[in-house]
């Protein structure tokens, strides 16, 4: 119910954005081609599902703005992972995003001694700037679209994070993303390097007893355009392993993103999130809905 409320708040924010758009001079919406703005990652940024791309979210071109709201649900054997957020893309140059993530330990919470239904809640504030390149139109060049971004994350469970060896309940990450559509091959390729010390992307805090330093981690996506409104692909994301109490593993997913139109898309994936807080093989269904323009 709470999530429903959050989602409806997100959509209210979205409709406000639609109205605001009319007040901004030289702004048109919907200039990009279907799906080329990407979908919403679990961290709220524009990209795939677990990998952030260099694309600026939404359908606004250089003469327009775009915005969207998303809700994502990942059903894992021992946990439930939910995110919801809103993002705006300004003139295909700047992207601002905010997302709330909930990592619900459900029955596992009791087994971990945290209590039934114990939930880590993390807010992710993101900003991204496209530096150069056009992932879609620069088909005569190798140069990808390149963007840099920052994500500031605040987790509400500082005490528990400290108890398991985490160093901080908040952290900041920066990343460089490169995205290229090889249109003649109908193939989208993305690679991103993120400097991070986050444990399970911050859901278990930042830094740890085994390592506290930021280090470069990789996230990549490939996508094959099946039709104008369907892309299928895979993603991979490496992560640090900072906490000695529990091994942290890389993330992987196989996805299909379907754009009903420029206002609504559905992404379904099979996500393999490895071992999380000693519970292994966290694999399950990932469903994400995005609405926007």
């Amino acid at each position, binding site marked *: 119910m709470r999530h429903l409320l959050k989602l409806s708040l997100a959509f209210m924010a979205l409709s406000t954005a639609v109205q605001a758009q009319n007040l901004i001079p030289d702004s*048109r*919406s*919907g*200039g*990009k*081609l279907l799906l080329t703005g990407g979908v919403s990652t679990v961290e709220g940024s524009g990209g795939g599902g677990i990998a952030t791309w260099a694309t600026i979210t939404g359908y606004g*071109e*250089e*003469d*327009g703005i775009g915005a969207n709201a998303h809700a994502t649900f990942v059903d894992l054997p021992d946990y439930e992972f939910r995110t919801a957020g809103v993002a705006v893309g300004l003139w*295909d140059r700047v992207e601002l995003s905010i997302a709330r993530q909930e990592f619900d330990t459900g029955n596992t919470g009791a087994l971990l001694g945290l209590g039934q239904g114990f939930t880590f809640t993390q807010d992710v504030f993101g900003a991204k700037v496209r530096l150069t390149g*056009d992932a*879609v*139109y*620069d*088909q*005569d*060049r190798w140069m990808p679209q390149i963007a840099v971004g920052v994500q500031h994350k605040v987790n509400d469970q500082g005490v528990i994070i400290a108890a398991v060896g985490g160093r901080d309940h908040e952290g900041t990450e920066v990343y460089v993303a490169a995205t290229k559509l*090889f*249109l*003649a*091959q*109908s193939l989208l390729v993305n690679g991103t390097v993120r400097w991070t010390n986050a444990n399970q992307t911050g859901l278990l805090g930042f830094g740890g007893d085994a390592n506290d330093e930021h280090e470069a981690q990789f996230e990549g996506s490939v996508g094959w*355009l*099946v*039709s*104008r409104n369907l892309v299928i692909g895979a993603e991979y994301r490496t992560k640090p392993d900072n906490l000695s109490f529990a091994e942290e593993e890389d993330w992987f997913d196989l996805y299909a993103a379907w754009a009903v139109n420029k206002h609504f898309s559905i992404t379904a994936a099979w996500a393999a999130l490895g071992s999380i807080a000693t519970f292994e093989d966290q694999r399950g269904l990932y469903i994400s809905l995005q609405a926007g323009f």
Partner: protein
Amino acid sequence: MIRMLSLTAMLAVATPVVAQDPAHMPGEEAVDPYSVADANAGAQPFAGTEMFDAFHGQAGIDRIVDRMLDRSAADPRTAGIFVATDMIRLRRTLKEQFCYVLGGPCAYTGRSMKDAHDDIGLQPADMGALVEHLQTAMEEEGVPFHTQNRFLAKLAPMRRDIVTR
């Protein structure tokens, strides 16, 4: 005789075509003189006739261009672009360009993308809308999606000359 022909050819290369392009059709408005060259098409053609055939030859290209332009002129997002456009000339040169780029037996006699779009003031969102209409037209012609993308990859870089605002 041969020598004279080659001399004429050299002259033709050396001096821009002064009057209209040779394929100028009745009903077209005059444009400022320009040099006619396939290079004006703005893309290297595909080798072989595989792509030309996949677009159902000249007849298929003609249908695609006509449908694309009909849709674009009817779309409120892009209709304004075509108000002051010589549609007879645009249809002809676009068909030539598509035929040439797709590896068909055509020469392109239109202006360069830069010269043809200089004064139109197209915005990035216009480009997107035009591509969408082209996609729909290709779809209606039954050109397979991945073949469409191979063609679009040739056209995409022209955005730099087409979009001027």
